């Protein structure tokens, strides 16, 4: 650990510097968005293969939610 990093860590420990919470949050949202996109692709494939009407409806609902969540995530990242 170099000197500057050590001083920053000590400052953070004593609550003298606010952590960059916004950047950390955006990074985490980016990671979660990747997972949601992957889940979206998987559900779309599942929908293609599903023949049961009730199950198709449930998958469709999930896809709708995922789309809305991905849009929400994108809006937060763009801000």
């Amino acid at each position, binding site marked *: 650990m170099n000197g500057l990093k050590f001083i920053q860590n000590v400052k953070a420990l004593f*609550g003298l510097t606010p952590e960059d919470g916004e950047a950390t949050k955006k990074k985490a949202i980016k990671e979660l968005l990747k997972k949601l996109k992957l889940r979206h692709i998987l559900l779309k494939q599942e929908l293609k293969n599903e023949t049961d009407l009730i199950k198709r409806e449930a998958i469709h609902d999930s896809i709708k*939610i995922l789309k*809305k969540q991905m849009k929400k995530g994108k809006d937060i990242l763009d801000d």
Partner: protein
Amino acid sequence: MKRLLLFISIIALSYAFFQSKNLLNISAGVAIFLFGMKSLEEGFRFFIGGLLDKFLKKITNHLYKSILFGAVITVLMQSSGLAAVIAISFISAGLIELAQGIGIILGGNIGTTTGAWLIAGLGLKISIATYALPMLVFGMLFIFQENKRLKGIGYALAGLGFSFLGIAYMKEGFDAFKESVDLTQYAADGFMGIILFALIGAGMTIIMQSSHASLVLILTALSASQITYENAIALTIGANIGTTITAILGALGAGYEGKKLATAHFMINSLTGLTVIGFVPQWITFIDYTAPFFGIPQEEYALKLALYHTYFNLLCVVLFAPLVHGLVKVVNHIFKPKVTAENAIDDVLFINDVALDFPDTAQETLFKETKHLYTNVFDIIAQGLSVTKEDISSGMEAEDIIKLRNYALHVNMDDYYERRIKEIYGKIINFAIVAQGKFSEISDHQFVPIKNASIGIVEAFKAAKHMQKNMLRYLESDNEYIKSEYNHIRKNLIKHLRTMQMIFNTTEEDVAVLLLSKLKLDAQNYDIAANKSLDNLIRTNKITYTMATSLMNDTSYAYTIASELSKVAHILFMHSSTHVEESSEALILNEAEVSDLTHASSQRSTL
């Protein structure tokens, strides 16, 4: 009885102080030292809130790391007692395992030896009071600061200052004593003497609740030649055993796991004490032989005692570190949790007094107890729907469960509430309110939401109870239409409960985020669909108006169950200590966003 003992102690001490000014000095020294230790502890409590939880999880996954953590925290706080309190609180809250807790205790034993070295090496040689006074001044300056951590530094500095001042008073008292009274005339030789002084050492540690204070007293008395070296060793053995009684007293208000740890602590120190007590003369020879290797002159008895103290505690670790898992088995065998019979009154599993020691443990305890409450309510809501919790947890389709359970299951929900909900709910609310008061700075985002989750769980139960009466009647009805409507409600709630189970069991963040939004969407969709269905049945006279009003009311109750449980799932997921990030919260759809989706769907279906 306690008050009488206190009264007698005050009278006896007052008389003794009147007779001897030196005894007053020594006692004042002990009191100031203990006050300093308390202040030091208080200072560290300002730091450990929130930090400790993250820190413990990272470093206590291996035994050697737990030992290291216990040693470091005891060196910093100069209190093995606080290390034990931390371990007991975190074990009781389920944040660490028993084996890790034992590791912390073993580390605490090593850490406590540094105190003996500091006192013997520095405290008794230099004018320690010179350092105490500026520490007290700077400590006070920091205590008046707004910043929580600077305040913590202030308490720690003032604590050190008071401890130093206490040592100086004790030293002064013993030095003056030397000129008038020779306490060594009361020294006891032989094995019986060792046993007697070990008992005195244990007794004074139990009274002072601090092995550190005992050690300071022993070292100052030894350096003033008021006790013999052999008796000082016996006192140290006793102090090491006595300190475990402090942990046992602290664990009285703890859960099973806390009691197990306190017992393990007692076993470790007592067994080591018993191992060495018969060999004190041999130990003295061994120390005489090894002391020169550490540059300790033969006549430096205080340093030699510190060396003995180190050997003793290292022996504890060497003997018991390889046996930690065996020790866990032994204490698990001693403390077997009571099995609650189906018809017995269920009580809290996690809430206990020690959980309120730290904000992290209080939050975790409140969270776990709320999940316990949810498990019971989940069980009774399932029964209220005339299915079992096993049906919901099974992989069966909801439609198949309805077919399998096509009869009403009569269960007394009021009785269930009295036996398995009321007590737990009451204690959760009480615990949350106490925690909110104690940790007011963080209560809004840590305790209030979890308390609200408990309220939501009980609201869901109440709605299920109101719904049950008609549910039982119409599941046995000859009117297939009304039966079908109630089966529809059952099916939707079964799916809802199942989704909740999936949220609590999943380790994948994206799945949980999706399911939490889906719970809200299902609750709203279900309400709309039920209303449409009801309109049709009334228009076509397929159900009576009594049935219609019952169905309307019960649809509303079902919606309450679904929406309350959705909120509960959201809160409990966000407060679960595992892998939940702030990003998850941001991407879970809120009520308005779910409404947008619902209206978009209903508009499409009407077009």
